[in-house]
């Protein structure tokens, strides 16, 4: 029995936003994947731009390796704006 590969779909709903992952679908190739994505994910005008990516092409970080990859960021808390205590009346901060 033939199998159509899996594709992940990303849609940018509006200019100014970035593409977000909306789900996946099966298609034999990229052209049909785009057509299917349009029918499945933008029926209610939910998309300006659609990307389809073969699921097999996606490299994911492994949850088991999460500590080395992400922990260093956890103690660099000064990267987050809420770390700073600034007067409320300073504009544009």
């Amino acid at each position: 029995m033939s199998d159509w590969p899996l594709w992940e779909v990303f849609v940018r709903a509006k200019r100014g936003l970035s593409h977000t992952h909306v789900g996946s679908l099966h298609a034999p190739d990229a052209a049909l994947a785009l057509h299917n994505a349009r029918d499945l994910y933008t029926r209610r005008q939910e998309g300006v731009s659609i990307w389809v990516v073969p699921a097999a092409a996606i490299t994911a970080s492994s949850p088991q390796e999460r500590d080395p990859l992400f922990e260093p960021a956890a103690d660099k808390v000064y990267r987050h704006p809420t770390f700073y205590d600034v007067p409320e009346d300073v504009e544009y901060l």
Partner: protein
Amino acid sequence: MSPPCVPAVLALADDALIYAQRLGEWISRAPQIEEDMALANVGLDLLGRARSLYTWLGAVDGSGRSEDDFAYWRDEREFRHLWLVERPGGDFADEMVRLLLMASLDVERYAALASTASVAGIDELAGIAGKAVNESTYHRDHARLWVLRLGDGTEESRTRMNAALERVAPYVDELFTDSWADRAAVAAGIGVLPSSLRSSVLGYVGSVLAEATLDPLPEPAWHARGGREGLHSEVCGFMLAEMQHLARSHPGATW
């Protein structure tokens, strides 16, 4: 006074409605669930197009008929659609050949309708036609993608596609036959003669078939004709019976 283009536009509306009716039959029967969605999408576009055209017709032809009056309360001999669109769906190959032909025809004839109606100041009709061009461009592309894959896929799919071309070939000439309604519309400056679209539409279709490694459209052994005069094939009566039966069983009812 009813505009001279009305009968030609009625034929367009009937083509859209009857084709939408046939496409509706594919839902839950398509080769892949994604294709159930795609064919439903085409069907919805065509149904919406038919509704808009009937609504416009009822307003301008002096009858005041509603979209449902046109769809449910006319008899077989009053419908003006092509034989190709009333044909039962058959094989998926038959359907993709039909979609390629009809969408290619629609892109061109609705483009002509949009520009001529716009020039004549019939803005509502121009708007409907403009939307139709966009939709049919997408439908044509969808059909093309499939014809390529089925023609140049497996030996079996190529054989089935060539067989579908044999079955559909007899219906092609009618697409490009000028009816008196077409001539009346064009004489009044609206639309285009179907015969003038033959070489560009069949040229496009031919190039897709060639790219798909399929045989060219064969010479048919017989020719479908008469749809524009309300002379349909025998399937039409059965199809209309199914479509109209419930509405006709309850005259005057609201749904």
